[in-house]
């Protein structure tokens, strides 16, 4: 089984609540869920939709075929009806002037219930009945999800919808042992688990929900959340906090990240650990503010004037977001560098069921030196060492030693020094850490047959779509494999080189125009990429899209 429900309507009509209820009901019935979200940049009106896909099997992305379309506006039908399967249905208000749809007497029911906010929940009732989902689970879920908020009204609405519906399917409940979470929540949780104590940022879609999630738990977790005046302040402020010894974080989308570029370079020369993220949306400039793209890869890798070691990690899915974010803090602390998490609107917002995160797997490694271990009479914040990493003290925690960090080229003490000798040594010291990072980075995840004829290569949030593509393609013809990069700078090349040697065709898949991942492959390897599947319309690519493109390419170009 593998079903998709699409709920569409205008901003402000409450499709979020419908989706939340349906998701939780289906999840608690034991199914895997993947919910894709498509918003316009409006607070009221326009057209938004969400697509809940669910299955007893693991699913990794949304798909293009809909079993049930719940249209809260007439426009929704026009836009989406082509996606409805031949045996699928469309439900909507009886006033809409469409044929081939099931019209529900929302008006009448709402009048009976006495509150027009209940339309959505009537639909939920209908849908639960249609799929033959367990009634009790649904009722209990509504009670717990809505808490006091109009439970009575919504239960009545649910029942009304349930009663007018008819069951086409009968879904046996399974054990529910997963969580349903999106990428931004997972990222935020990873940061909290890693002990972040200072988060500052400026609202910017699609990054904002990380800040609001942390803010919601700020008091309970003792975290300072500061909404700054601008993104320039954000990274500078976070660097102050990190210098003072707490784990600090900031994040934004491309435009806000652009304003942090100068301070990123500051983190580089000051050797202050910092974790920040760029939740990409399509640019340039304001671009499509509520949509998705992977076009900031090169921008982020090369961000900052001058040369300094940094690490860039592309997050692949909510689970990855959680564990990689926590790991990023350890890496930042270990190497005293900025670590940039690259995510995007798609991953930020889609929700999926995953195994509950294992907090016992998270370790916190601060690499902070005890004052008593410092032998130099005057503390050398930038002491030359074999690794390039200098022992780190925290100001004020160290009782005798003083900690001076500086944005100029400086000597070991942190004092301004323009000499050739110091410059060369300090550059070498800092860049040595980049060499160490090359040993630290994780190779991309490989999925597929061990000796692939066709190798797909992607990074970050396309993970799910590529994984599902591989599973589907290999079930037909077991000749596909895929490498999906998480750690992406420094660029890991071992697995890539070894699988590329085996493959006859190499196809890069990414959500941008210039095929930036390919440009990294061109720069760092001798591999010839045969084809780039690119999507830059602001909508996430899924496995339907990928398989279509691959088949087109392979049929033109026989292996």
């Amino acid at each position, binding site marked *: 089984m593998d079903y998709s429900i699409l709920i569409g309507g205008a901003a402000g009509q409450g499709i979020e609540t419908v989706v939340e209820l349906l998701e939780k009901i289906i999840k608690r019935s034991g199914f895997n869920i993947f919910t894709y979200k498509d918003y316009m940049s409006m607070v009221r009106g326009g057209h938004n939709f969400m697509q809940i896909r669910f299955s007893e099997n693991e699913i990794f992305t949304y798909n293009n075929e809909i079993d049930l379309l719940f249209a809260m506006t007439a426009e929704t039908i026009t836009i989406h009806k082509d996606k409805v399967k031949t045996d699928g249905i469309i439900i909507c208000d009886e006033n809409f002037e469409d044929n081939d749809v099931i019209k529900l007497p929302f008006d009448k029911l709402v009048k009976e219930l006495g509150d027009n906010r209940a339309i959505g929940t009537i639909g939920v009732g209908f849908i639960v009945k249609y799929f033959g989902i367990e009634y009790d689970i649904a009722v209990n879920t509504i009670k717990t999800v809505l808490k006091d908020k109009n439970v009575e009204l919504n239960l009545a609405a649910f029942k009304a919808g349930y009663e007018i519906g008819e069951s086409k399917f009968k879904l046996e409940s399974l054990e529910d042992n997963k969580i349903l979470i999106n990428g931004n929540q997972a990222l935020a949780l990873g940061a909290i688990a890693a002990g972040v104590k200072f988060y*500052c940022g400026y609202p910017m879609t699609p990054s904002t929900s990380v800040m609001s999630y942390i803010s919601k738990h700020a008091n309970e977790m003792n975290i300072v959340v500061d909404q700054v005046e601008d993104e320039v*302040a954000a990274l500078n*402020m976070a660097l102050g906090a990190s210098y003072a010894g707490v784990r600090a974080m900031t994040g934004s989308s491309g435009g806000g990240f652009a304003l942090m570029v100068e301070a990123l370079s*500051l983190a580089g020369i000051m050797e202050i650990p910092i974790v920040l993220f760029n939740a990409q949306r399509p640019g340039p400039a304001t671009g499509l503010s509520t949509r998705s793209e992977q076009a900031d890869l090169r921008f982020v890798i090369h961000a900052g004037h001058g040369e300094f070691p940094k690490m860039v990690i592309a997050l692949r899915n909510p689970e990855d977001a959680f564990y990689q974010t926590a790991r990023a803090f350890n890496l930042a602390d270990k190497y005293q560098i900025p670590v940039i998490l690259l995510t995007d609107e798609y991953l930020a917002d889609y929700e999926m069921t995953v195994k509950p995160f294992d907090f016992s797997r998270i370790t916190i490694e601060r690499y902070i030196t005890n004052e008593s271990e410092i032998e130099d009479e005057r503390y050398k914040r930038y002491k030359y060492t074999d690794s390039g990493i200098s022992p780190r003290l*925290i100001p*004020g925690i160290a009782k005798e030693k*003083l*900690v*001076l960090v500086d944005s100029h080229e400086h000597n070991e003490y*942190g004092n301004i020094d323009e000499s050739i000798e110091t410059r060369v040594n300090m550059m070498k010291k800092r860049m040595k850490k980049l060499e160490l990072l090359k040993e630290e980075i994780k190779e991309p995840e490989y999925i597929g047959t061990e000796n692939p004829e066709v190798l797909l290569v992607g990074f970050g949030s396309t993970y799910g779509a590529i994984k599902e593509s591989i599973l589907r393609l290999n079930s037909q013809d077991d000749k596909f494999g895929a490498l999906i990069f998480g750690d992406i700078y420094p660029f890991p090349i071992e697995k890539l080189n070894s699988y590329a040697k085996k493959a006859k065709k190499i196809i890069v898949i990414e959500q941008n125009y210039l095929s930036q991942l390919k440009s990294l492959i061109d720069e760092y390897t001798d591999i010839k990429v045969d084809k780039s599947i690119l999507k830059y319309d602001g909508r996430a690519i899924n496995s339907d899209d990928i398989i279509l493109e691959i088949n087109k390419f392979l049929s033109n170009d026989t292996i």
Partner: protein
Amino acid sequence: MNCEYELYKPSWCPGCGNYMIRDALKKALEDLDIEPSKVVLVSGIGQAAKMPHYIGLNGFNGLHGRALPPAIGIKMSNKDLTVIVESGDGDTYGEGGNHFIHTIRRNVDIAHFVHNNQIYGLTKGQASPTTALGQKTTLQFDGVKLNPINPLALSLTMGAGFVARGFSGDVKHLSNLMKEAILYKGYAHIDILQPCVVWNKVNTFKWYKDRVYKLNEDYDYTDFEAAYKKALEFGDRIPIGILYKVEKETYDQKFSFIEKGKPLVKAELNPINAQNLLEEFY
């Protein structure tokens, strides 16, 4: 307290007002007997901003215009630290203008000493936001066309609870102001008149000397209107001293876990503590 002093030879010009500001700072900290290791001096970029290199304190010498944001991050992370920001007029009121006004809104407990030489010193003499209208500079060949900022009227309007003006030529008076600013709970702003002997041939030591006067003993620094008027006085006569001082709730007091708890930097970190947060996702 004894903040080592001769670590590094300042690269300031002979006769520069910055030397005396450094003397005043040293004296203030010594009088207050604060451990150097408990003080962080934060600065941006410019001549004034080199201060962390020339005095024995913890130091964060960051980016031009960006001294205040890290200072906030530092203070919120470790409330036990005394956080002092020193930077130039260009740094603070020009490049850093947005941080200046929004930092005041927070009322973080930091002391902010602006070396106001009414010029960009380090970059060789361009106009700063406090350079007088019409003054000729190495960039404004036919005179400055922007009206100068009044830093004290601005911090008053933004709601600062401690607003003062000092003069580098009166070290004792200045160091007393600094002490008050450091002791004040909340954001304390001192704009310090500082001659730049190379680039500002208008606002010289003598120019300042001839104009500054100390506020009367009976001046009521809790009176906002009086303070605002004094702030506007910048011409033939220039008042120095505390123009305004009232108590205000500070930023950290608004975070109960900071107000009541230990400094954040001392928190024990344990991932398991966050595990409960998973509940809502089931």
